[in-house]
């Protein structure tokens, strides 16, 4: 294969929900290359979560085609090609932190020793050493979300789908987890598709920002983010950062205006 390898390929994807007859997605074309960090941003209800679910084969598209790692999305799901993180940390209350992280590994049939080793690595990665025996309700919201990120990463999926993972967190925690996520992304070399409501978060994290408009949900603009890697505290004060934030904001408003 020449050029960057394509991880996600969406071709003319549409989704109409029979219930309510809402056109959540219309004619979505999107390519995501290996190692990219792509953010989806758009007004509430524009179909960001739906697009993520279609890519993950959790929702059937009404029309169009999705290829993940060159395979149909269905095949990719059965091959466990991606890890997913939802807006609220979906942890299983009856499992300790360690067992929540180990769940996908159990389903993959890993041995106990191998699981324990990987869980220890993951706890270190998300800086939760010492909490392995805690239950989810004993953790703060940010810690819970880090557990669900650790779980999504535990089986090293090449693709990470994240639906507003930090939406419910305060600004301080959010910025810290942003940096943690970027560090993990750089260390693991994975590909990330990241849904957010925050323009600055999208610009700070991404290599590309995909701007969507509402009803029907379409991609209006794709903005490459040419800020230097790795992103640091200084990035947030870079004049270029503000230019890009403005560019994304204007694209969002342009998208909203023609609805």
């Amino acid at each position, binding site marked *: 294969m020449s050029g960057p390898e394509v991880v996600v390929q969406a071709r003319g994807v549409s989704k109409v929900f029979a219930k309510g007859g809402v056109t959540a997605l219309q004619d979505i074309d999107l390519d995501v290359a290996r190692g990219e960090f792509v953010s989806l941003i758009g007004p509430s209800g524009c179909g960001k979560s739906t697009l993520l679910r279609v890519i993950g084969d959790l929702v059937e598209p009404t029309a169009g085609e999705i290829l993940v790692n060159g395979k149909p999305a269905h095949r990719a*799901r059965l*091959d466990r090609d*991606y890890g997913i993180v939802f807006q609220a940390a979906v942890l299983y209350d009856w499992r300790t932190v360690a067992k929540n992280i180990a*769940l*996908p590994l159990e389903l993959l049939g890993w041995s106990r020793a191998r699981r324990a080793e990987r869980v220890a690595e993951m706890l270190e990665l998300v800086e939760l050493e010492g909490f392995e025996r805690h239950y989810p309700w004993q953790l703060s919201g940010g810690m819970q979300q880090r557990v669900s990120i650790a779980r999504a990463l535990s089986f090293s999926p090449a693709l990470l789908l994240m639906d507003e993972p930090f939406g419910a967190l305060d600004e301080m925690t959010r910025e810290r987890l942003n940096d943690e996520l970027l560090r993990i992304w750089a260390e693991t070399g994975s590909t990330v598709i990241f849904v957010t409501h925050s323009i600055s978060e999208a610009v700070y994290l991404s290599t590309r920002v995909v701007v969507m408009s509402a009803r029907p949900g379409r991609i209006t603009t794709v903005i490459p983010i040419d800020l230097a890697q790795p992103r640091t505290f200084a990035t947030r004060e870079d004049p270029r950062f503000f230019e890009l934030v403005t560019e994304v904001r204007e694209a969002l408003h342009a998208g909203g205006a023609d609805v």
Partner: protein
Amino acid sequence: MTIVFAVGLVSWQWVLPFLGVERYLLPPLTDVLEALWDARSELLRGARITFSEAIGGFVIGCSVAFACALGLARWRPLGNALMPYMVAANAVPIVAFAPITNAWFGTLSPWSKVVIAAILCFFPVLVNTLRGLTSVRPEALELMRSYAAPQRVVFRRVRIPNSLPFVLSALKIASVLAMIGAVVGDYFGGSTEALGVMIVSSVSLAQYETAWAAILVASVLGIAFYGAVALVERLVLGWHPSIRAGVE
């Protein structure tokens, strides 16, 4: 709590007779305890019989209910179609069927009481378990889908653990109902040695002290049964916030 208990006992023993409460209404505590001691071997035998009926009904009723709930949760259209009837059946006064089960299994057979106890246990356990199995957050199921987990695994790893708090509170209700079913079943006839039969016959012979002694035994058994299930709940739901918060 201890004070309330003591005051209760004192008024039972001295205040009620002083107020002129007749012996057939409620005999003094010491007389009941005396009857308890005198009839201890009969009461013990009766307790064994009636308690086995209750346990038998509890085990059968609860396990059949759990199995049915699994089936109805697995095939949702069936579950949705049957649910209203289950809820309605849950509201039927099932002890009213006790004379009928006597007719089915024979008055002297313990099975007529076991079946009444089992039916009493069945509906609350079924309805609660089904609710527990189906009230799973959609994202929790989507996550399992993203792992390509088959239904069997979804049940084992998500639906069944999710249902456990519901199941255990239903089991506590069922433990009480099973005792009620067994004793009331006895009232409609049974082996003369059973606890419920003893209560009825003692009353008809005006042996109120013995009747109260038997009621006392049945109550203690009922509380002990409930307590045992509550203990199991604590052990099984060690992860549950309500339990943990209580312990620490």
